[in-house]
């Protein structure tokens, strides 16, 4: 119920129903500890016998993500918008008895993120902001000879924080970080993204 309410709030914001004065378009690259290679079934039985003797998965890299966002500013302090991104992750399946790799797992995902921002500092030189994101996504996992599986993602970033520096009137650089909770995978995550933004 809470998830549905939050989703509606973010969707409402992302549709830009509020008055606005200027818009922002950005392209970003970053990483997110939402380890896509860890699918929920491996978290639902923590520490039991099967989790000790069955092969387990571990990530080999921070999953990179690339995407773009569009923010509509609402007055001077608020902004609302959406982002779309594509991410990958890789991990290995390890046999606990021999500690050897059985196969490599690759994951690809697409994500859609309604987001809001609150600018607590904003001027010609740049801005600093807090916000909140709802990450909705779909991932496909390739397990080599073991086959493929899919899952959906629903995660709420509760602590996004970032800043932007305007290099020119129309262009700037930004960096943002967030922390949140993956409802479906039931795990905490942190992320960091940076890129270029255009003031439209």
């Amino acid at each position, binding site marked *: 119920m809470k998830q549905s309410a939050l989703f509606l709030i973010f969707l409402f914001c992302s549709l830009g129903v509020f008055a606005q004065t200027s818009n922002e378009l950005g392209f970003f690259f970053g990483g997110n500890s939402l380890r896509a290679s860890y699918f929920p079934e491996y978290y*639902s*039985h*923590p*520490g*039991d*016998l*099967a*989790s*000790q*003797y*069955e092969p387990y998965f571990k990530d080999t890299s921070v999953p990179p993500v690339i995407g773009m966002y569009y923010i509509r500013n609402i007055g001077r302090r608020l902004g609302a918008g959406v982002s779309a991104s594509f991410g990958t992750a890789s991990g290995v399946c390890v046999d606990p*008895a021999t500690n050897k790799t059985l196969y490599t797992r690759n994951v690809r995902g697409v994500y859609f993120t309604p987001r809001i921002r609150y600018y607590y500092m904003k001027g010609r030189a740049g801005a600093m902001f807090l916000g909140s994101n709802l990450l909705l996504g779909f991932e496909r996992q390739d397990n080599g000879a073991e086959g493929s599986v899919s899952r959906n993602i629903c995660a709420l970033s509760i*602590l996004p*924080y970032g800043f932007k520096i305007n290099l020119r009137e129309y262009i700037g650089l930004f*960096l943002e*970080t967030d*922390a949140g909770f993956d409802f479906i995978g039931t795990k*905490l995550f*942190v992320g960091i993204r940076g890129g270029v933004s255009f003031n439209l």
Partner: protein
Amino acid sequence: MKKTVAILAVISFLCSCSQDGYFSGSNASFAAGEHYLVLLTTDLVPDCLNALEYALNYDYYGYYDKDNDQYISGGVSLRTVGAEWEVNSVKAIEGVKIKSTAINEWSLSWKGDYRPFPGDRNYDEKDRYVMEFTVTAEMISEASRNHFDWKVKLNATRKERKGYACTMATAPDLVYTTSTKSYIWDSCDGSATIDVTKDGNVIDFGRMDYMGQSHRYFRDLL
């Protein structure tokens, strides 16, 4: 940014911490057998002994003939050989059956989802892990302290998902003692073993030796 990373690092660290049991003297790897035996000796046996001691102390006050929410006694003192009580005073093993098998010796039996052991509590009742155990506790000393001293013999089985199961036992029996001021049993001597099976075939064996306030784990992965 640095503050955020630092806060997240602290939270991650705190989340990864776990409290050691009574007899923590080992920092060996998280082998299933060792982990289970530690839970057995630091949680399950003390829960049983607490339930037994609560019932015996209750018995002292002469209310043994009363049935109430915590003790279903049948009107017979728990110190009477053959007496059988159902004890609900320890939540983790609520409903444990205690039977007096000899003078100063009791047998405790229980079946259910013993919470200190790992498992998924969100699953349906039928998918929960069932644990069944019998503990025989012989009172060694009844000195005027917070706890009595006990010699404990244990047999336990646990069934889990994907065909995994384990059998745990004591050999030789565990001896739990406590110092004058301690509110927990602060010393354990003896050994406990675990057999892990998958689909009925033994795949792992472990033995934990307890030496007072430390322990040592031996593993034989088959």
